[in-house]
């Protein structure tokens, strides 16, 4: 049967967008829609789970299934959805506060489980929704209303953390490179396992340090090929450590290993949600208690 061709219009939402003009989130939204279209995904085949912040508003501005939950709790909800219906293409989406502060523990364990989903972190190195406080990825010395004399803790390195946690797909994108980001999102969705993309996203209102220009002057693509072997973990660690004058973007580390959903006997046949409940099947369950 010929597959129905989807277009960007299929993903248009009528919900008015509440981001600041010029926000890096617009390009991420564009890349996301483009990736879905290029993969031929239909809106009802996708479920996006988001937390709370500016980034987690993204699913409202798309037409697809969406669960906009609590701050930091995207990954457990997404895990529940994927296990209940593994036919869905599941994405989780949040910001650096959502994912690296409030949701840090879930991030570690989602990587460990290697459940088949894509996790996008819009990393603008500052808190947007709550109006400009320090984030776990804010640079050392970053001045905000909650760190008026400058942040005293060094910034968290999400890529390094992910590679150390044996995450099976670790990538970095940049909101200023939409085509590159679209390709990354496509690769992440196609990857069998937990695919994580940290997306550098300029905040035009609260981060006057890490601006579009600041990122654009520094990012360079790391591509698979003769020059770079993304399956080499040690090389990946070296790349992930790079920050400052030159910032690598692209797939930093990738490996194949069994997924959580691929190992469960309950869903080797069909997804849980499509399995009928058969009361008859329980008739022998009491025997061992007699």
């Amino acid at each position, binding site marked *: 049967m010929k597959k129905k061709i989807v277009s960007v219009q299929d993903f248009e939402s009528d919900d008015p967008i509440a981001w600041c003009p010029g926000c890096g989130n617009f390009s991420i939204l564009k890349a996301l829609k483009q990736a879905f279209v290029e993969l031929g995904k239909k809106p009802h085949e996708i479920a996006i789970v988001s937390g709370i912040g500016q980034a987690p508003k993204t699913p409202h501005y798309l037409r697809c299934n969406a669960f906009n939950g609590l701050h930091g709790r995207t990954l457990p909800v997404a895990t529940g959805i994927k296990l*209940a*219906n593994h*036919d869905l293409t599941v994405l989780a989406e949040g910001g650096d506060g959502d994912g690296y502060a409030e949701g840090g523990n879930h991030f570690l364990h989602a990587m460990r489980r290697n459940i088949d989903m894509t996790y996008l972190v819009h990393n603008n190195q500052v808190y947007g929704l709550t109006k400009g406080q320090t984030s776990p990825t804010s640079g050392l010395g970053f001045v905000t209303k909650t760190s008026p004399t400058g942040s005293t803790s060094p910034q968290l390195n999400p890529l390094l953390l992910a590679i150390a946690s044996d995450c099976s797909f670790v990538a970095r994108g940049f909101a200023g490179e939409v085509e590159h980001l679209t390709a990354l999102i496509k690769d992440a969705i196609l990857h069998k396992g937990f695919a994580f993309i940290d997306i550098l996203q300029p905040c035009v209102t609260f981060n006057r340090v890490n601006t579009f220009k600041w990122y654009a002057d520094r990012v360079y693509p790391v591509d698979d090929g003769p020059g770079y072997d993304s399956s080499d973990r040690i090389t990946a660690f070296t790349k992930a450590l790079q920050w400052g004058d030159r910032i690598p973007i692209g797939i930093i580390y990738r490996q194949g290993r069994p997924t959580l959903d691929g190992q469960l006997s309950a869903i080797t046949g069909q997804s849980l949600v499509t399995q009928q409940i058969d009361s008859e099947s*329980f008739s022998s369950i009491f025997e061992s*208690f*007699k």
Partner: protein
Amino acid sequence: MAVDVSIRISGQAGQGIQSISAIMGKIFTRHGYYVFINQDAESRIRGGHNFDQIRVKDQPVYAIGDKVDYLICLDGNAVDSDLPDLDENGIMIYDGEKSNFQSGNSHHFSIPLEQFAEQAGKSKIMVNSVATGAAFALMGFELQPLLDRLKEEFAAKGGEVVENNQNSASSGYRYVKNNFKGISANQIPTGPFKKQKLLLNGSQAMALGAICSGLKFYSGYPMSPATPIMELIASVTDQYNIILEQAEDEIAAINMVIGAAFAGVRAMTATSGGGFSLMVEGLGLAGMTETPAVVVVAQRPGPATGLPTRTEQGDLQFVIHASHGEFPRAVLAPGHAEQAFYLMAKAFNLAESYQTPVIVLGDQHLNDSYYTVDHLALDQIPIDRGSIRFDDQISSVKDYKRYAGQETGISPRILPGLSEAVLYADSDEHTEAGHITESADIRIRMVNKRMRKLEGIRRQMASPKISPSKKSDIVLLGWGSIYGAIKETVQLLNHEGIDAQMIHFSEIFPFSAVPFLTNLKKKTKIFAVENNFTGQFADIFTQQTGISIFHKILKYDGRPFAPQEIVKQVKEQI
């Protein structure tokens, strides 16, 4: 003659007290008796002082007794600590070679338990089986059912383990037969032997109730006394196609449950008060997103870590009010194992029908205690999945609105991915379509819509159990696991000619209409009996009915009530 015998097995953690109480309990059940087994254990893996107490009756039994008829001491310390609880005509089995205790009482039987364990069972860990064999001989039971039962219990551990346990039990049995001829005190008559009734604890009943209700997804973090629910479900995941995921914390557990329920399967978690404290934000998420979620809270004494292996009813007000903001929920609190099975089924039906969280409140006394149950009927737990519309019915749904349904508060529900429609769920206040809104009008409509469901749930709440039904001078008012203790208290009072009745609530919130109030006389004295310090249910009762409660019998030492201690306190106050 009526049979009512209590057997206490006392010793250290790690001596296999619980395995032999379950072995003995099942044999009594197969002989047609009703048993109630409660655990009194310390929070440790080895050593200390623990006991299990098995009460054997010829009628249904739901509470501990006040006297011990058989005391089985697996170590020397048990003699010192437990002998004061032994009835004056009670029988004690102890190891005289391992204890400084010397008794002249002809009902105190010194048996070389450890020596036999090492000889017959090849390890002193077999002390429990030697003692069980000896006890069975004294009670007048045949040896063979015990040997069969040991085989059944230990078969999975291999033939040698079975053999060592059987040899140990036989040596204890024969020693009694050979050395204590003519002893006939406190014997338990043996009836026909058949596998008919069930023996199960509250956790097992809850797990079975969930499984038979079509549970498909469980996520949880281990915490006493709720963990056995998770372990039982884990043991049948392959058989019944259930996914069980051990979460990194209780926050993840409830959020995974919400995700799975959003995607359309029956999902639950179980924890104790401390874990539930972490779940509280997620509970509100289920309320706001209108996602069905079943949460078992098996209470233990708090606050903080409290008494991890003991019992309390201290979290009732907490679970009713947990989470910020206002949203509908139901709170059910089964009184015994059989009710726990059926109320789990009701919890899933309510959660799906009203698309909101339902809490089933147990406690260590209910969850860890074993009850003989006559029968569990699958046909009495119909599965009601509420307004879910499956794929074949929704092919034409366009512009579906997740939160439509102002009139009843109940929205038509579709499941993501099963049709071409898409749905938005949101923890922000949202429009009917599920998008974020700041509109005051919509806020009012949505709060009204959600809270309307509370009235629907209220109509589903069963009335309390009133027994006997005639108006009485004294009412024993209780909820949850207190059922057995107040039921028997009433029987004891009635037996003494004191006019008393029980009013027991197992479906607590929303508080149901109050037809039972007509049952109260003007001068009825109401005694609220609760395992907590403040009388939490009494306060709810007063708030809902306007009836003040002047008599409270409260216990918060981490131990369950024995009926006789309630009788004593009632008599002091009338």
